[in-house]
């Protein structure tokens, strides 16, 4: 029973869709919290709009609402569920902001809901800059000189007073949205304007910059009895100036003396006590590297990304303990889940070094500004552990999957010394590689690099240790001593092979013959002081004793999906976790390997054993050597795991599920063509070319527009639609490096309806839980499209064909487990676009709305069962009487210089779901949930390509009928007048002073409908317009299909504002009578 005896039902708010700055860590935190509450016998009501999460599984909470995270919806659910308490500190900034809104609107008071955990006053005291400043001043905690401003002149005046550079931080935002460092007045004005737009309360803070100081963080816990502990401290490799989410972070701090460590620790305890936080809290400091001076930079009165990291780094479950504190327990009453003997009231002692490395989306957003500053840009992160820093750092680098396996970028080899040196002063994602390159070449000393970068020499010396060994490997004989030195600094066999000009296999064999093998150590929160039962391990070559005692049980390794990135998000973690659960249900020991600290899969009590390791062939094989499992499952870990299948099989490892050869038949263009010929399934005409000439003649034959992309893609990387030869030439020279080994695919672009199917096959039968129809026509990446289940516009014959094709493909590819197929329907015909013989990003969504345990089934089949044996019939599962809509969510606000127009390259970072018995309502919920600011009235600007003008006219008419004012540039406006509709004329970009951008800035436009136009200058204008909408937080629809659906939502809203919410349990529980 909870300590607070008045509680029997508690509502938990999730963090919603994944965006930069608010990612999978809140699924981890939320799931853990829900489980902790249920454990206490509480009824848990969960609200989260993100279907890709474990926390929205029906067994995590008693009542799961996948509904938009707005105060309106939450109030509605509160009125219905009447919870006794509300826990909002585990849903990130989104959850916290909602709690504040619910309190301010009087909802909590009206329904007598107690805000659990940190009190509202504390939240406001930490979040409101002015009150935070007062609090810190009262405590005598130094904070950088700062002032809150609500307009530009005040900002400029204050900056003059304290001097540049200054930091601009908007109040009440997450991930530092809209903030930045300003070096001068011009930059200040720009940043302040942006910041004011993003702040929920129209305030920004102008602050003295302490760039270059050490950045240190503490994770602190406090209970209702005022007992406080720090769970972990962390030191940023990158000095103050780079957002902590974009910094390489090490835990515990490495360069702090005990005095410095305790000074900041004590400050953290004073702060959490003064704020009266009950639960977890994060405090960030800038520490002068040359004195005892420090500043408090920020305090987060909630569980954060850093707390997820701290939890994984120490084994201390912050979210779980926070939840228990929220319902009245004190720290000394909560059991330490790791030791099962000691209590949660202690401070974890680490006996290893942890490194976190951010994963940036610059591989997708090639043209984005790579500069790192106060605005977070990383979509995800990896974590690694070792007994030394060097090993942990290189493990982290290997885990990133950015095409590097050590601190070495191939392209830098071609750079001259001057260029490498220049790169040292650029704060971006490549800086650490430039540092290593400079040290490797010996063109800059540690001291010199420190002077430029302000990175502590301790870190730089460690990098030098690595490059010194690298240099020795290129010169000296590979003796056992040198081999050990190489492994000791964390170099992979592959790196050693590259440096000694041998093959990786040779190095592996040689190394094993030298008896240089990794040891596995346990993460136990207490540095081995107490016996622990946590099956949570990391490898090290820096040890004498291996702690893993493999069992003789039947066991299977599930490969995880690594860092969250665009195209491979939390969905794949969902699948990995469910596969582990299925294995355990079957009585098989489930082992997971993953390196993402934000996820549920790396929670130590999910699997029988967790190995926190890079997902490379070597790292995985080392674990296999140790564990000797029956085999591995690769189909749930996205492309990360699939990419390892071939090399693991080659090493003699059993790969469960679809065979490696059949995976290749689906992925290899030519082999897949054979499959299609054999199964008589049409695909859009296309060719594979290896040079420009063939591309041009091929495209001419197929006919423009054509879709071009490199082979082997995930998330539509470098995929484009080109409309003519000039664009094709440009693409071939710019976007891809085309070689005989890396052909480019040129396909006919079919402007039809895209349809997506996920199925489970045993090679004979196929179960199709559902079919999803995409709102946006083909050409928009499936991950960026609005997907609707079940299809709303497709003819029965089409659906029949889709099911038939799916069956044929599953049989032809001998799929054993999940498969995902994308079709395009054009001119009444069904064509196939691609098949992925693995889990896809729609699996969690479809599993939830259809109530088919897809991953569980697929896991059982991969291990040898059949659908028949599991009681399933081949074919499409009858569609449910309700509709579910999945809408993409973007993080464009964080990525300047990225074009927001939808296309074949995936750009979204997350998704929101809407579910209802009526399509329009489900759509409304999805769109609201996805954060599109749909205006109820005001002015819509149309600026579309010529090819879209006719369709635009219909849209103009429809929006105008809903009472919207219309704005357009002169030519378009004339056409609109021709229809008898009034339209305001707005100047093209830079055409006159009152141009489009000005209109957007000044708030005269409430929504923009813009399609991509051809031609260099108009394309540039389009880009500027789209970016302006992002910077000013207004909706911009770049697909007319989306515009039509928004229109549908708006007219629905006009007619019937009534919105009601049901729990997923109500929908899937078969309450058809509610329809």
């Amino acid at each position: 029973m909870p300590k607070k005896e008045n509680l029997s039902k508690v509502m938990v708010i999730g963090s919603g869709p994944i965006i930069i700055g608010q990612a999978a860590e809140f699924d981890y935190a939320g799931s853990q919290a829900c489980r902790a509450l249920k454990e206490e016998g509480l009824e848990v009501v969960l609200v989260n709009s993100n279907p890709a999460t474990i926390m929205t599984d029906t067994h995590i909470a008693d009542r799961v609402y996948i509904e938009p995270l707005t105060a309106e919806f939450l109030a509605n659910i509160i009125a219905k569920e009447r919870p006794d308490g509300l826990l909002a500190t585990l849903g990130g900034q989104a959850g916290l902001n909602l709690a504040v809104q619910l309190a301010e609107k009087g909802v909590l008071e009206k329904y007598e809901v107690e805000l659990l955990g940190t009190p509202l006053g504390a939240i406001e005291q930490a979040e409101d800059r002015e009150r935070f400043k007062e609090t810190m001043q009262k405590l005598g905690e130094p904070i950088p000189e700062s002032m809150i401003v609500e307009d530009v002149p005040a900002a400029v005046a204050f900056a003059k007073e304290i001097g540049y550079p200054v930091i601009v931080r908007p109040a009440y935002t997450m991930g530092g949205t809209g903030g930045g460092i300003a070096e001068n007045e011009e930059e200040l004005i720009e940043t302040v304007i942006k910041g004011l737009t993003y702040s929920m309360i129209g305030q920004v803070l102008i602050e003295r910059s302490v760039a270059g100081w050490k950045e240190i963080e503490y994770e602190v816990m406090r209970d209702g009895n005022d007992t406080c502990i720090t769970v972990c401290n962390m030191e940023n490799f990158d000095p103050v100036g780079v957002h902590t989410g974009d910094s390489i972070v090490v835990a515990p701090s490495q360069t702090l003396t005990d005095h410095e460590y305790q000074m900041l620790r004590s400050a953290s305890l004073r702060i959490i006590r003064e704020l009266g936080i009950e639960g977890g809290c994060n405090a960030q400091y800038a520490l002068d590297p040359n004195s005892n001076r420090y500043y408090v930079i920020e305090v987060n009165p909630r569980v954060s990304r850093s707390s997820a990291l701290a939890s994984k780094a120490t084994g201390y479950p912050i979210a779980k303990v926070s939840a228990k504190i929220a319902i009245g327990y004190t720290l000394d009453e909560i059991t330490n889940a790791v030791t099962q003997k000691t209590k949660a009231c202690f401070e974890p002692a680490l006996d290893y070094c942890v490194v976190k490395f951010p994963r940036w989306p610059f591989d997708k957003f090639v043209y984005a500004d790579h500069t790192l500053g106060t605005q977070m840009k990383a979509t995800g992160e990896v974590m690694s552990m070792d007994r030394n820093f060097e090993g942990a750092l290189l493990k982290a680098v290997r885990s990133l999957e950015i095409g590097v396996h050590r601190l070495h970028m191939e392209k830098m080899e071609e750079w001259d010394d001057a260029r490498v040196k220049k790169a040292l002063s650029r704060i971006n994602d490549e800086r650490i590689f430039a540092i290593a390159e400079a040290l490797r070449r010996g063109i800059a000393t540690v001291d010199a690099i420190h002077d430029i970068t302000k990175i502590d020499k301790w870190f730089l010396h460690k990098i030098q240790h690595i490059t010194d060994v690298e240099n020795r490997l290129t010169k000296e004989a590979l003796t056992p001593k040198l081999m050990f030195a190489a492994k000791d600094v964390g170099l992979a066999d592959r790196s050693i092979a590259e440096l000694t000009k041998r093959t990786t296999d040779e190095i592996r064999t040689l190394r094993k013959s030298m008896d240089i093998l990794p040891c596995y150590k346990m993460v136990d929160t207490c540095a081995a002081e107490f016996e622990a039962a946590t099956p949570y391990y990391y490898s090290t070559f820096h040890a004498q004793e291996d702690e893993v005692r493999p069992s003789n049980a039947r066991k299977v390794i599930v490969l995880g999906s690594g860092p969250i990135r665009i195209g491979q998000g939390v969905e794949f973690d969902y699948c990995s976790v469910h596969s582990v659960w299925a294995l355990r249900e079957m009585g098989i020991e489930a082992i997971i390997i993953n390196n993402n600290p934000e996820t549920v899969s790396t929670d130590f009590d999910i699997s029988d054993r967790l190995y926190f390791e890079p997902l490379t062939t070597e790292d995985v094989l080392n674990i296999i050597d140790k564990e000797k499992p029956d085999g591995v499952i690769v189909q749930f870990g996205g492309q990360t795991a699939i990419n390892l299948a071939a090399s693991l099989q080659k090493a003699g490892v059993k790969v469960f599920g679809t065979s490696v050869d059949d995976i290749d038949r689906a992925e290899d263009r030519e082999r897949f063509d054979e499959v299609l010929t054999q199964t008589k399934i049409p695909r859009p005409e296309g060719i594979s070319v290896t040079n420009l000439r063939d591309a041009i003649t091929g495209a001419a034959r197929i006919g423009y527009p054509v879709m071009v992309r490199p082979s082997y893609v995930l998330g539509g990387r470098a995929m484009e639609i080109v409309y003519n030869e000039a664009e094709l030439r440009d693409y071939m020279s710019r976007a891809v490096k085309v070689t005989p080994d890396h052909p480019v695919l040129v396909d006919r672009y079919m402007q039809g309806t895209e349809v997506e199917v996920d199925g489970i096959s045993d090679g004979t039968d196929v179960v199709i839980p559902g079919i999803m129809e995409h709102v946006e026509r083909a050409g928009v990446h499936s991950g960026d499209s609005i997907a609707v289940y079940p299809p709303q516009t497709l003819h029965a014959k089409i659906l029949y064909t889709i099911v038939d094709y799916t069956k044929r493909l599953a049989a032809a590819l001998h799929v054993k487990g999940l498969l995902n197929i994308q079709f395009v329907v054009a001119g009444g015909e069904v064509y196939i676009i691609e098949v992925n013989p693995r889990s896809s990003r729609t699996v969690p969504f479809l599993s939830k709305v259809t109530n088919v345990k897809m991953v569980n089934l697929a896991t059982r089949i991969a291990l040898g069962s059949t659908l028949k044996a599991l009681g399933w019939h081949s074919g499409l599962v009858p569609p449910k009487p309700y509709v579910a809509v999945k809408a993409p969510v973007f993080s464009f606000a964080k990525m300047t210089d990225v074009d927001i127009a939808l296309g074949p390259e995936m750009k979204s970072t997350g998704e929101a779901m809407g579910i209802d018995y009526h399509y329009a309502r489900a759509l409304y919920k999805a769109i609201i949930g996805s954060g599109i600011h749909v205006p109820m009235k005001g002015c819509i600007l149309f600026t579309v390509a010529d090819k879209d003008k006719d369709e635009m006219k219909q849209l103009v008419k429809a929006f105008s009928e809903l009472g919207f004012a219309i704005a357009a540039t002169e030519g378009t406006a004339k056409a609109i007048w021709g229809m008898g509709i009034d339209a305001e004329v707005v100047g093209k970009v830079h055409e006159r002073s009152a141009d489009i951008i000005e209109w957007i800035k000044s708030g005269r436009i409430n929504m923009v409908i813009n399609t991509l136009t051809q031609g260099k200058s108009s394309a540039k204008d389009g880009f500027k317009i789209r970016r302006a909408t992002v910077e000013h937080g207004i909706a911009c629809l770049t697909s007319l299909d989306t515009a039509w659906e928004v229109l549908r939502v708006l007219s629905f809203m006009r007619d019937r504002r009534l919105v009601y919410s049901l729990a997923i349990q109500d929908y899937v529980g078969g309450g058809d009578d509610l329809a």
Partner: protein
Amino acid sequence: MKGKLILEDGTVFYGDLLNDFKATGEVVFNTGMVGYQESLTDPSYCAQILTLTYPLVGNYGIAELFMQSRKSFVAGFVIGDLCTDGSNWHYEKSLAAFLTEQKVPCLYNVDTRAITRHIRAAGTMKGIIVSEKAAKDAADALMATPIRREVVEAVTTPKAYDMECERRGAPFVVAMDFGVKQNILDSMHRKGFRLKVVPAHTTAEEVLAMNPDGVFLSNGPGDPADVPEIAAEIKKLFGKKPIFGICLGHQLIAIAMGAKTYKLKFGHRGTNQPVKDLRTGKVQISAQNHGFAVDAASLEGLPLAVTHVNVNDGTVEGMRHKELPIFSVQYHPEAAPGPDDNMYLFEEFRAMLEKGE
């Protein structure tokens, strides 16, 4: 040079030798992640081979400022990675240079987690540090060397000295040095005490002759049962002066009262030990370094109340006399290394003395 740590039960751990000093001592582990210099110079580690569980050591070098006594008294130092490129604005010299200068035998590149796991299961035991090539009989002879027992004698100040205080009306305390850590004296001094630090074997008579407002009994090395003569002197102070004891001082108060102490399996050494104040229910994180504890059962019938217990294992962490102004804690409020959470105890002592006036 390759070297090894051999435990009394024959277990061997391998590493590299920093210097060629030999070591014999009781092998103990400390789980703190920072503060290696403070631990190395904590006199309570006298005659012990100290191993650190945190594997990266020497990161910020050595600075005079952080010395806890005039020198390091450890018998040996066993660690993981020995950092040669320390970095910090306090940095004065490298850890390696310090160890060699202090003649501390040091074995590094050792799997100290493995040592900890072994000791956790088998209990603290004797060990030696020798070179890998050391002859078996030489090693055996070293192992046979008894561990030094007159440790308090070895670490206490040779002669008394004063720490004056400018503050008017500062209470005057005689601090009995059984191996006192510098930060205890510094903390008391900062909190406004006037101190006279006296050698361990100063008699009660001598102490009382100094007419202090209170007596402080310091931490120190070894088994409290080995110094009954000191406990006997302490007993004579009861009822005469307010007393505050830390660590060994705490244990000696218990013995002087007639209670017993016992040896813990592997002790408490680290900076993360949770201590619950039974009067408020609040828990503070404490720095600890002790291998012995007061036997709670032996307190029965004595005028001593247990005020603090360890949350992990329930052992006695603090006591207060039911009538007299005497209290003590097993842990280290002065920290260094460790959390500053318990500095309030010095204030309580001051309040106790001021109230007495």
